[in-house]
């Protein structure tokens, strides 16, 4: 009679089969390979790795494929896998000075040691649909040879903000407040106020769209912090681990990251002279927009530490950190699809009783 409450098991099974078929699409169209996704949808893979907190291009590509291109769903898949992995150790801090740079720009100095390297960027493309891409081409576009002058090819490229640092014009890099302990949000619940390391982890995992909107809001006056893109660099860095029993560091991988250092104005306070302050962003791969937004939000969240009056949500640590995670947000928003008949029935009973009490409706 009332089929709605019966047959859940079969419905789920059929839904899964239907989903699998929809995911594959028309079987006459060749199936995507993980290598194709990795190579040709590389920025999707980068985003999934960044917000999924797991550096594994192949698994991220698999997640993108399985999620039918829904990147938040792919991030969720990767996270759910990541949570089952053992923690073997903590790497040494990445030394981005020693990055093999593919792109490196600064918006605050026209020229600087190491030079400006534009790299592979959409920035100056004209956003005209390239109809030639519509057809598969037999000849692959060739990359220009990277020209590296001998003196600039050393294994260290100083960061722009360090040039300011020498003059004392920018705040010193705080040594970190963790006392050597590396916090991990995926193991311990967030406590407030959060340490900066945990905050940065939260932002690195945070939803790109959310951070973009928050960062944008700071630019429009909600927690304004007068940012300049001090430096953005993209390239390969070594990941090093120093196992206790070895006593020295070994390189375990090289990964591509984008780092953004914002330089922000600061008028000074009772204890600090006027100087520039920092906002920091770091992401896997080429997720540059995310790195920049992250740096803006990081700086906004440092308001208390710098003695600035918090006046907007972008400076409100609890507001930002509690709502940045897209897997959590997506789950809670979408759980409204689940049955709520019991609570709704309670509300119906109440509303009918209240209306009956007011004489607006005859009692049942």
């Amino acid at each position, binding site marked *: 009679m009332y089929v709605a409450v019966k047959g859940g098991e079969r419905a789920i099974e059929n839904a899964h089969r239907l989903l699998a078929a929809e995911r594959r699409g028309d079987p006459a169209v060749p199936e995507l390979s993980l290598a194709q996704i990795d190579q040709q949808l590389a920025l999707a893979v980068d985003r999934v790795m960044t917000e999924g907190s797991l550096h594994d291009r192949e698994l991220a590509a698999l997640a993108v494929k399985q999620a039918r291109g829904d990147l938040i769903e792919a991030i969720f898949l990767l996270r759910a896998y990541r949570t089952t992995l053992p923690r073997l150790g903590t790497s040494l801090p990445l030394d981005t000075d020693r990055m093999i740079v593919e792109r490196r720009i600064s918006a605050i100095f026209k020229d600087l040691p190491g030079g400006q390297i534009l790299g592979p960027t959409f920035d100056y493309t004209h956003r005209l649909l390239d109809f030639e891409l519509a057809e598969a081409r037999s000849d692959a576009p060739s990359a220009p040879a990277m020209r590296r002058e001998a003196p600039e090819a050393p294994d260290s490229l100083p960061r722009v903000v360090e040039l300011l640092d020498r003059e004392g014009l920018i705040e010193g890099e705080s040594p970190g407040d963790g006392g050597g302990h590396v916090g991990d949000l995926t193991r311990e619940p967030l406590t407030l106020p959060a340490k900066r390391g945990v905050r940065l982890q939260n932002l690195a995992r945070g939803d790109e769209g959310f951070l973009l909107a928050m960062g944008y809001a700071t630019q429009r006056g909600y927690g304004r912090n007068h940012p300049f893109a001090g430096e953005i660099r993209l390239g390969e860095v070594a990941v090093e681990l120093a196992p206790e029993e070895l006593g020295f560091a070994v390189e375990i991988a090289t990964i591509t990251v984008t780092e953004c250092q914002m330089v922000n104005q600061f008028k000074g306070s009772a204890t600090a002279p006027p100087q520039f302050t920092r906002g920091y962003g770091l992401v896997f791969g080429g997720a540059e927009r995310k790195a920049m937004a992250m740096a803006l939000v990081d700086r906004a969240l440092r308001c208390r530490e710098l003695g600035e009056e918090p006046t907007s949500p972008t400076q409100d640590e609890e507001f930002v950190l509690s709502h940045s995670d897209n897997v959590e947000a997506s789950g809670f928003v979408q759980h409204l699809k689940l049955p709520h*008949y019991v609570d709704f029935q309670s509300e119906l009973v109440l509303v009918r009783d209240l209306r009956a009490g007011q004489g607006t409706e005859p009692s049942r």
Partner: protein
Amino acid sequence: MSYNFAYLDEQTKRMIRRAILKAVAIPGYQVPFGSREMPLSYGWGTGGVQVTASVIGPADVLKVIDQGADDTTNAVSIRAFFARTTGVATTTRTEEATLIQTRHRIPETPLRPGQIVVFQVPIPEPLRWLEPREVETRKMHALEEYGVMYVRLYEDITRHGRVAQTYEYPVLVNGRYLMRPSPIPKFDNPKLDRCPALLLFGAGREKRIYAVPPWTAVKSLDFDDHPFEVEHWDRPCGLCGARGVFLDELIVDDKGGRLFICSDTDYCSRRQASGPGPEPRR
């Protein structure tokens, strides 16, 4: 590759059990825990699933309900998850279950000593709609500063002549902590009081666990002149004839025809099959 018994690794289970023990020791207090990302979506019961996974053993008999029903899609899905990852026996019969995971209801069949009920909790903080900041609400609990909740209930009475809170009706546990009894309807609140079973509440996304140990006093907030009362229906279940149970409303035709039936499908179907079962505890 295969997963551990009940999916979670033993270290994680140990961490969750510690949180549960603390929660049992301080009834109604919300214990933060390192909630894991589960292979089902936040909002689908990740907190309840982690609690269940941490307490379930091979000898357990598991029942899973959503909205009181064993056969709603999410109940089916969670039951299948544990059947696959633990191989334990599952049941729909309330009295046969040693472990019951639920969303939004407490079964009509009286619970018994030795049973554990695990509630899926979306928002654990009873003061959340009055104060959105966790930093503040933790202080309010520490100082037992619950006046705002009484004011909120009082405002309802002045406006509507009664408390207009129908589910997640706030309770005071063991005379100390204000607790949000997950979103069960207030109809089920009296079942929390001095319940013989252990009641565990898991909020995965919010990373909190809390508990009501067996036989603990749980009082729904009220006033002397406006005592707490539950929903009532002026008709029995349309299928089994039960009275004094929570009824779901079905719309059965396009002329506004309604059918009211038990939300507890186990209770209802067995009354239909074998005549009236045990009367619900009120």
